[in-house]
């Protein structure tokens, strides 16, 4: 479903140019659970942004369901993100002025879906992630684990084809992190959802079917089978 061909990306940080990705090929199939691991600065977040249509490469091609999105304009990319991709972030990135329900329903607002339908679907998803009693709570009133569950519910509300999680357990204690990874694994197992998790926590990577090791903007070992050594 996602195919990256010789993708390169560089960006400027102050004076220096960072070559985040240096000609990278990657295939992710429907229903895959892939973990992208590597030291910080290895380009794994950039890779995830490109897979999720948050960014476009400087060189190479990105094929999503066979369609090249490398030259999509901003609105087409937004459509793609809104329909096919769900994001989960390390810092949850919930909107702190909105309740759990409104945070989860937010993406549907941009699809012009009516309030009652939005809230109904958001409530269903919050129930699924185990937060049916937290609908009206604001993010500040929730624990870290609960906030991450809200953000997973938000990522699922558009019924995406692929869920991208960037260090989803990075701000959580290990027990809570385990619960979150179980939840994500469940989505892959029970719903057959394609999942890409960026992590540098080896225990998170164990949940994946395959592991992509990144160093210096390249994949060091191709793809290796996960779930084994930890």
């Amino acid at each position, binding site marked *: 479903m996602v195919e990256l061909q010789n993708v390169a990306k560089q960006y400027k940080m102050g004076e220096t140019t960072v070559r985040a990705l240096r000609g990278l090929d990657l295939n992710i199939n429907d229903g895959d659970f892939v973990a992208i691991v590597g030291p910080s600065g290895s380009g794994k977040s950039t890779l995830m942004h490109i897979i999720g249509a948050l960014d476009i490469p400087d060189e190479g091609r990105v094929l999503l369901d066979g369609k090249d999105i490398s030259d999509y304009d901003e609105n087409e990319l*937004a459509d793609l993100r809104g329909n096919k991709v769900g*994001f989960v972030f390390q810092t949850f*990135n919930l909107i702190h*002025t909105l309740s759990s329900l409104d945070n989860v329903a937010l993406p549907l607002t941009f699809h012009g879906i009516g309030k009652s339908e939005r809230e109904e679907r958001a409530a269903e998803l919050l129930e699924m992630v185990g937060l049916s009693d937290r609908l009206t709570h604001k993010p500040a009133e929730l624990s870290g684990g609960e906030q991450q569950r809200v953000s997973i519910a938000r990522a699922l509300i558009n019924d995406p084809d692929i869920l991208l999680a960037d260090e989803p357990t990075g701000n959580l204690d290990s027990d809570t992190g385990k619960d979150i990874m179980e939840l994500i694994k469940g989505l892959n197992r029970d719903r057959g959802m394609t999942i890409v998790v960026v992590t540098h926590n080896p225990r998170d990577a164990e949940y994946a079917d395959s592991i992509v090791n990144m160093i210096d903007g390249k994949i060091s070992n191709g793809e290796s089978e996960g779930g084994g050594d930890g």
Partner: protein
Amino acid sequence: MLLDYLILSWHSIRNRSLRSWLTILGVVIGVTAIVTLISIGQGIQNSILNEFEKVGYNTVTVLPGNFDTQRGGFGNASTDRSSYLERGIIEEVDGVKVSAAIRSENLQVISEGLEGQAFLRVSGMSPEVLSDFDDYFEGFPVAEGERFSFESEENKVVLGSDVAEDLGVSAGGKLIIEGEEFTVSGILGLDEENGSSGQFNFYGDLDNGLFLPLSSLEALYGNKGKASLVLAEVYEDVDVAEVADKIEKAYSRVNTASTTITTEEISNRVNSALGTIQIALAGIAAISLLVGGIGVMNTMYTAVLERTREIGVMKAVGAKNGQILGLFLTESGLLGLVGGAIGMLVGVGLSLLASRFISQALSAPFTPSFGPWLLIGAIAFSFVLGSISGVLPARQASKLQPVEALRYE
């Protein structure tokens, strides 16, 4: 969609409530200033025009002398100033339906309630003053004593309330005018609430007048057929200005300088003079509104910076540039709208409060005028002002790159 934007905007406005309210306050001050100044200005204009409209649009006031109304206004009398008009001339002018004459002289008045003598303005009124032009004199209401017609040949006089008090006489009392005894048949009672004691007619202050039939004055003073103020009502279907012109020409043919004044002319002058003042005042008020708009812009720039990550998240979940733009425009428009609504209410309150002082100052009833266009316009304009002030910040927000926005600390 707009409702959703409004709700989202409302959440973020409430979240930084002190800053939002301070921003709104800036708009409130501007809108308050505009609503107050315009409603008071419009109210003054209306009340002045109302006074003149009581006189009627088909009435021409004729004064002796050549006031250069084109250049100097009424105060600038030229040297050619006669004090009388021939009454008979105006009756010959085409288009004049009916005319009335008033003649004022300073005469010696003696009263029992007054030590010594006084020289007071005594006005002889032709009967038509009451029968056809009583509106010109606030209806000429007699509060005390009997109704009057100015047709009587007997020696009777009507007094304004102030002069009656000064002379110490009441209805039925006696006065000696130029050696002749007069009976006070009535005393005027001008409605203070509803009238303005002749502020806007060309007679002057009715409360200080002594009024008797023109025929009585002529009997006292001689010089028949003269008038110091002539009123003419023209036929409905003729051009008032044209008749006024004919009247002036008719008098100039007998070598009498005259000046005609029509209600239309006055209302044009009042409109243009007050209109200019109002525009100037509104312009000054608009400056404060502009400052309010800059406040909105400043707040919105800060909001875009603060919520950069939030914008990144919205883009990550599928928000398009146009939707982010719309969201921030709604938010800044809402700041303007709330400011406009509050400013309108405060402005209405303030001008109602001010109108009490203005009534006292004008010694005339005064109500500020709140046209629907002013109230709706004030709110609509502040919404637009808020939105316009938000355009640049909102554009900045919408153009943020999602990846950079998400990375923003």
